[in-house]
């Protein structure tokens, strides 16, 4: 029931599995047996309660069972960590130089009992009238959650099949299966591991940043009834455009005399706009082709992904091309050398790293020191407080005032004395940059535009019922082009993270530009059910999983592609409505089920 991951020691209800002879110190878990009896008892009681005649009593008993289960789980977790701590202290007291138990965790049994308790609570709610209606009302959460769970089960099966555990001879079948189960558990522990450390969170936000952009891009298309699979191509063209502005315009000799501050004020916004414009162009073309010729946007966006990839290679793979054996084309884009990459982005067009924004700098010894600046936190507080307080004001003005307050907060914060501190090198090495702030603004923009403006309302109308929208005076052709252009612009902005923010380690365009995040955006949008907060959270979730995937590769040798597979399965299962009954997916049936409390179904 308790496990130490990888090559380690596994404590189970049928004894300790120390197959590699690694146990130096063992926590005292003699209480494990009692808890096992308790869980069996709980399961039996749960079955017995199902036969109670009255719904209200059933619900009450299930609630009690669930709450007791949660409490016992908490007690177990506490006892376990306490036992580990005690064992470590005992070893230290006995003269060990470092604590012997460094990596330890709860294992499958504990997680299962936790989920089981939650499940009992849910069963309790379902006994009461309106239980199902409640679930259906929350279908925006239930369907993705169930799909996610199913995908994890499928992923577990794949790990079970593909990854063998090597036990010493004569270990026995029971031990073999226990060790394998633990391996699967450990896989997911590693995947979710980044949630436990500050640098893990930072790294996850870093990976999530481009996913937020592409997820928003796909979600934007979905809202207007369009499926934009073209995010990879739009990102690529955005990256090329921002490279042209950030490298070749900003370094152009006639701007050489500009003071640093002025150059930054011109070229940084210009490069960001260029990224958006490039993506918008690449999105608008299939939108126009659909509006004008009725060519389906799915195939066209896919074709344009490949065309963008060709243009990208054409620009950075070589500087000289010969046509028909006669004419030679010379281009200035490729940086000399074997590798295909562009020149470096000018200092003035770079997006600063998050650690810089918070007032930290690397000193000569390589340590990150500085004073934690009040600018960013104050700006955020000012923004939120003004926005909440000015509820009376008209929305547009309210936003403007809030933004003004944020800028004021930033400036005031700049004059306040900061808190001096030193960053751990691990945290400082994460290259989370200002593009994350742009991403946060993009989420806010999506929310504002789609649900607070007339244009957004019309877009959603076109997506839900094109004929009705057209009858109401909306031009579907215009809306299609507009939606594809904005969707493309959002995807193009992801390039700011890679090129201007140094998301691929260097401030330049490289052949390793991971355009696939455009496809990941589909999973992000679907898991987030096309809502702003949902897209943000699911991008963060995938950021965590991909970060954990690195550890998975390092520690267990399971390819990071497992996360890609999970993404694909999530898309598949959400498309199938999580294999849930129809009243979760069909809007009309769902409405009826919600009314079910009043006796329609």
């Amino acid at each position, binding site marked *: 029931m308790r496990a130490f991951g990888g090559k380690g020691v596994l404590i189970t209800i049928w004894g300790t599995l120390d197959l590699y002879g690694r146990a130096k110190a063992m926590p005292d878990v003699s209480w494990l047996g009692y808890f096992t009896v308790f869980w069996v008892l709980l399961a039996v009681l749960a079955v017995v309660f199902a036969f109670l005649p009255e719904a209200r009593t059933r619900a009450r008993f299930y609630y009690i069972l669930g709450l007791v289960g949660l409490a016992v789980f908490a007690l177990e977790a506490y006892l376990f960590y306490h036992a580990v701590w005690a064992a470590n202290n005992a070893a230290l007291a006995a003269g060990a130089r470092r604590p012997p138990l460094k990596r330890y965790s709860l294992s499958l049994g504990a997680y299962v009992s936790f989920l089981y308790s939650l499940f009992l609570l849910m069963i309790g709610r379902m006994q009461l009238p309106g239980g199902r209606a409640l679930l259906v009302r929350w279908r925006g959460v239930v369907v993705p959650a169930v799909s996610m769970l199913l995908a994890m089960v499928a992923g577990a099966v*794949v790990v079970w099949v*593909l*990854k063998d555990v090597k036990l010493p001879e004569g270990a026995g079948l029971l031990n073999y299966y226990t060790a394998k189960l633990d391996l699967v558990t450990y896989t997911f522990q590693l995947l979710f591991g980044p949630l436990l450390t500050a640098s893990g969170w930072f790294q996850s936000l870093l990976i999530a940043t481009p996913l937020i952009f592409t997820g928003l891009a796909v979600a934007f298309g979905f809202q207007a009834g369009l*499926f934009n*699979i073209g995010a990879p191509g739009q990102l690529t063209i955005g990256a090329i455009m921002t490279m042209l502005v950030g490298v070749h315009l900003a370094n152009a000799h006639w701007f050489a005399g500009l003071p640093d501050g002025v150059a930054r004020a011109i070229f940084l916004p210009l490069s960001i706009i260029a990224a958006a414009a490039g993506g918008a162009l690449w999105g608008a073309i299939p939108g126009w*082709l659909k509006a*004008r*010729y*009725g*060519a*389906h946007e*799915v*195939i*066209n966006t*896919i*074709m*344009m992904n*490949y*065309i963008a990839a*060709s*243009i990208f*290679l*054409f620009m950075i*793979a*070589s500087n000289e*091309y*010969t*046509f*028909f*054996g006669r004419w030679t084309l010379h281009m200035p884009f490729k940086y000399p050398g074997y590798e295909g990459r562009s020149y470096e982005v000018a200092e003035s067009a770079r997006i600063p790293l998050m650690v810089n924004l918070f007032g930290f700098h690397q000193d000569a010894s390589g340590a990150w020191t500085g004073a934690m600046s009040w600018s960013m936190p104050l700006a955020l507080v000012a923004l939120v407080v003004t926005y909440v307080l000015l509820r009376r004001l008209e929305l547009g003005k309210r936003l403007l005032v809030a933004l003004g307050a944020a800028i004021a907060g930033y400036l005031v914060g700049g004059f306040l004395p900061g808190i001096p501190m030193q960053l751990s090198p691990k945290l400082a090495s994460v290259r989370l940059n200002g593009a994350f702030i742009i991403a946060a603004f993009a989420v806010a923009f999506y929310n504002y535009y789609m649900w607070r403006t007339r244009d957004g309302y019309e877009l959603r109308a076109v997506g839900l019922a094109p004929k009705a929208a057209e009858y109401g005076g909306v031009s579907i052709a215009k809306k299609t082009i507009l939606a594809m252009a904005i969707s493309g612009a959002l995807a193009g902005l992801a390039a700011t993270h890679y090129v201007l923010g140094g998301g691929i380690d260097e401030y330049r365009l490289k052949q390793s530009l991971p355009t*696939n995040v455009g*496809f990941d955006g*589909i*999973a992000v949008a*679907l898991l987030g059910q096309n809502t702003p907060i949902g897209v943000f959270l699911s991008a963060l979730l995938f950021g965590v999983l991909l970060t954990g995937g690195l550890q998975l590769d390092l520690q267990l*040798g*399971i*390819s990071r*592609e*497992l*996360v*890609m*597979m999970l*993404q*694909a*399965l999530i*898309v*598949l299962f*959400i*498309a*199938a*409505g999580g*294999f849930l009954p*129809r009243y979760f*997916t069909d809007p009309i049936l769902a409405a009826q089920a919600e009314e079910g409390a009043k006796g329609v179904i």
Partner: protein
Amino acid sequence: MGIDSFLSAAFLIPLFQTTLRSTTILLLTALGGMFSERSGVVNIALEGMIIFGALTAAVSAQLLEAPYVAQNPGAHVWWIPWVAVLLAMIVGGFIGWIHAVVSIKYKADQIISGTAINLLAAGFPSLVLAYFYDNTTASKEVVNRLPEWFGFSPLVYLAFALVPITWYVMFKTPWGLRLRSVGEHPEAADTMGINVFRTRYTAVIISGILAGLAGAFLSIGILNQFVRNMSAGQGFIALAALIFGKWHPLGVLGSTLLFGFAKALAIQLGGTDIMPPTVIEAFPFIITMLVLAGFVGTSRPPAAIGKPYEK
């Protein structure tokens, strides 16, 4: 190299051969896709099915021949590639079945379901390769590839033979009529006693089988191993060829020949200074877009395509 060398035999013969090979992949895939789309199920998953077929064929052939090759490095065992092809077809059909279950039984958006399968095909092969070969990009090379009869793989002949066969099945048999009626007006077909669900299931599985076959041709017919993302968009081009060919076998033959020729030209001009290869590689995609925008206006898709059937 001057323009005149275009017309030399040294240029034209390989061009012809490469055209037929490139066409074969597109033709097999597009003919399969025709069954699916004619029955009313959009199959954007063709790309993924090709990849799964290619993976299955290469890995199974390599594993089957391993004991023989261990004894004699050049061992030729005639049945190995054929078993590999069969397995690729089975796996392709299985992927088709998944697409069918999700989009027919669970009434998912067919394009999203297909996209999910394509995403799966981008990630899953790496896990399999890591399991068998300890790397995530390519399989070991296969000795027992598909044989060649008179200069071409048997699958090339099969692909072209399938054109009249498909035409006959689709337009001259009762089953073909039922299939088309299910794609045009499922309610009417259902009223006439045709099992809409079973017909669609069969059609989607057939498209998976043929795409798997195309994948096998790609990995052990043209090449001798599986390389990650080796399909490189040919499933999508096949889909475009299907639309361009107006969902008709003869039209599909014409459009796949056009796209196959464009691809062959790209390959043949690759090493020369006539055109940069990156530009040529984009040709088939640009042609596809032009074709979709300009000429498709008159072609009419099956009326019920993309709509899940509600009984």
